[in-house]
């Protein structure tokens, strides 16, 4: 194992499952023998606020926080949140963004505007973005709670360990508690992987075109 530290920032909105995703990722890293730290600052119990979780793993991890400009991966459960945290990526890091738009009450009541196209904003700033429409995929699979598994599937090929290890971490949890959910989670994971591979191809195509 070399001294490289992998920094993954997961962001979203309270109640979306950001912390669960971070927990699964951290457990998977630990199962690979990495030292691992997972940090989160979630303000209050109520729903709806900004939530981030920092996952860092490698041979030896010191600080539990990811310094702005050093994240290898940004996993955004909501598109505007993705833009909010994009400055945490290192040059060449990737933003894996669920394209769902969730407007808070202060936006829907007209006090603030939701940006027309947060992905375009990120790209204009030079951030490599892979779009994943996790909401639609989850709906097609018949369960909105699958967003979590889909997003983990989407980053599975961007980790320093095999995708199957992350999948096993997710599936293992369901095998114990809700065996009936194993199969649909496997499908969700695979769908997330494919969506991100498609998105990745789009990003490469764009790079060639521009």
């Amino acid at each position: 194992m070399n001294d490289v530290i992998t920094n993954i920032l997961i962001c979203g909105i309270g109640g979306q499952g950001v912390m669960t995703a971070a927990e699964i990722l951290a457990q998977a890293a630990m199962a690979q023998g990495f030292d691992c730290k997972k940090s989160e600052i979630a303000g209050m119990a109520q729903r709806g606020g900004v939530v981030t979780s920092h996952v860092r793993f490698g041979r030896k991890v010191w600080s539990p926080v990811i310094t702005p400009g050093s994240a290898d991966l940004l996993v955004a459960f909501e598109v505007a949140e993705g833009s909010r945290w994009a400055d945490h990526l290192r040059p060449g890091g990737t933003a894996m963004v669920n394209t769902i738009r969730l407007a808070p009450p202060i936006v829907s009541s007209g006090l603030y505007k939701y940006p027309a196209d947060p992905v375009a904003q990120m790209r204009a700033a030079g951030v490599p973005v892979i779009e994943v429409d996790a909401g639609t995929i989850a709906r097609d699979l018949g369960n909105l709670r699958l967003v979590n598994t889909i997003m983990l599937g989407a980053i599975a090929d961007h980790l320093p360990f095999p995708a199957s290890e992350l999948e096993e971490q997710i599936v293992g949890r369901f095998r114990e508690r809700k065996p009936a959910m194993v199969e649909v989670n496997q499908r969700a994971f695979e769908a997330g992987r494919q969506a991100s591979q498609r998105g990745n191809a789009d990003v490469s195509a764009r790079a060639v075109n521009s």
Partner: protein
Amino acid sequence: MSAAVQAQPHTRLLLSGNDAIARGVWEAGAKVASAYPGTPSTEILESLALYPDLYAEWSVNEKVALEVAIGGSMSGARSFCAMKHVGLNVASDALMTITVAGVVGGLVIAVADDVGMSSSQNEQDSRYWGRFAHMPILEPADSQEAYEMVKYAFELSEACNTPVLLRLTTRVCHVKAVVEVGERVAHDITGFASDPRRWVMTPANAKGQIPAQIARETKLLALAESSPLNRMEDGKDRRIGFVTSGPAYMHVRECFPDSPVLKLGFTYPVPVGLVEKMASGVAHLVVVEETEPLMENDLKAAGLSRIHGKDLLPRLGELTPNVLIPAIHGLVGEPLPKGSVYPKIDPFPRPPTMCPACPHMGVYYSLSRLRKQVQISGDIGCYTLGAGHPWNALDTTISMGASMGIALGMDKARSEATKDKGVVAVIGDSTFLHMGMPGLLDIVYNRGNVTAIILDNRTTGMTGGQNHPGTGKSLTGEDAPRIDFAKLVEALGVAPERIRTVDPYLLPVVYKTIKEEIAVPAPSVIITTRPCVLSEFYDRLSPLKVIDETCTGCANCIKVGCPAITVKRTETRTRADGTTHELKFTTIDTAMCTGCRMCVESCGPKAIVPAQPTAVAQ
């Protein structure tokens, strides 16, 4: 959480600091543990409640929690209590005297400072309390250290006859890191032995013990100087040496891997000798501590004048790498490393909102309608959000329970302009039981013209839904006597006809009741009756919808503040006189709506109806 409870000795687990501390407390053989919830410390007791062979409780407030732990310690049981930083202010009266008398069973007090203020009303450095009360302070940097230090704290407590302060911060409590756990060592309770000269703190008895308390500090200092919790980590870049404690140590190691670091875990009394040794080998010495310059001041007082600390570093917030690097680099004249390459994008703020159907909204909707006629003294809990959009119906929040006394003070300090205003105090059920009761008693006793609204949602919502004496359940989930708020306030002296119980979902009733009670020049209490949406007592019903053709775009339902109701489209209309106004047509998110029906009465044209025609309870 349960993984740590079941873990066999020598297994490695990913644990939060809070879960690691709970495991350490249990392994240390503690028999009594108590706390009042408070972010970021809450999960310590939630986790401890799952371990066998130990008594764990939610106390009504932190002072009582500490007193329960003191009683345990006096009886020879290893005892533990936990609280957030401001909780120690509440507990401080007991603290300042128990550190004179000392302990029988080891007594450890974990205090969690909210460095960075993710969810608190201030950012105090509770290490002041350790100094003030003459007790040793241990500061872990991560979960493994928290686990080890809490076990050591019990030993230290017994060896030096003193309570020990385990100082945590949010980055210790809520960061998960790898911990290797061990085995429980049993500590039998010796039982209470009467010793009035020691435990009855009359002036004569206290005076007799203070010399020992002072002498103890010499012994503690010697222990700190030789403690394995304080270690020198050498480095080849001797331009700067760091003295650091808590999670700041991790950030220092991250940013300056080649610098020598004196890593302090046993931080009070400050091991000056170790720092002197370090100082002689480096060009600059920098003390990196969160948040106040406490070690720094102690070191300066001991004669180490040429040290840096808060001259370079901020006195608030975390000392994370992005703060440390620019602050320190100037010292050696190095150019700053390049920061982030991508620009910051700031889409819009996203403050936390109340949950859909939160019963608090019924009260705030009504108060916002009465806004010009009332001053509203508030308190701490989910209902503090009433200060925000769209209600703007809270004027003060200071400390837990303060809504009562502040309301009384406002009532007694009326000006010509405010003499006819109603004074309303809004307080949650857990907060009322924590510190609100004495304030209400004061209102009654001193004939205050105040209307107190007790938001009884049968839980401690803000901290994640803990039990309290008003829920009918204990920390461990067993049935407990359930306090009757109406009887309680009557016993405090509120006239029975001035005690009103309302369903907060019935907006017109809430409005009318508040209006009536502020009109009566006497203490009155309004108690709401609906449970927190996230509690086990809440029943979800079938969702509602807005009939588009009936909706007139008045947007009155938006003012209820339920996040399930949003604006779907707007239309600008021109009035006859040429002025324009905007209509906002709304919609209800059926996935979020619980069918509470609170918003129904806010809609004049009756456009809010069941989403399915034959709505039945699910």
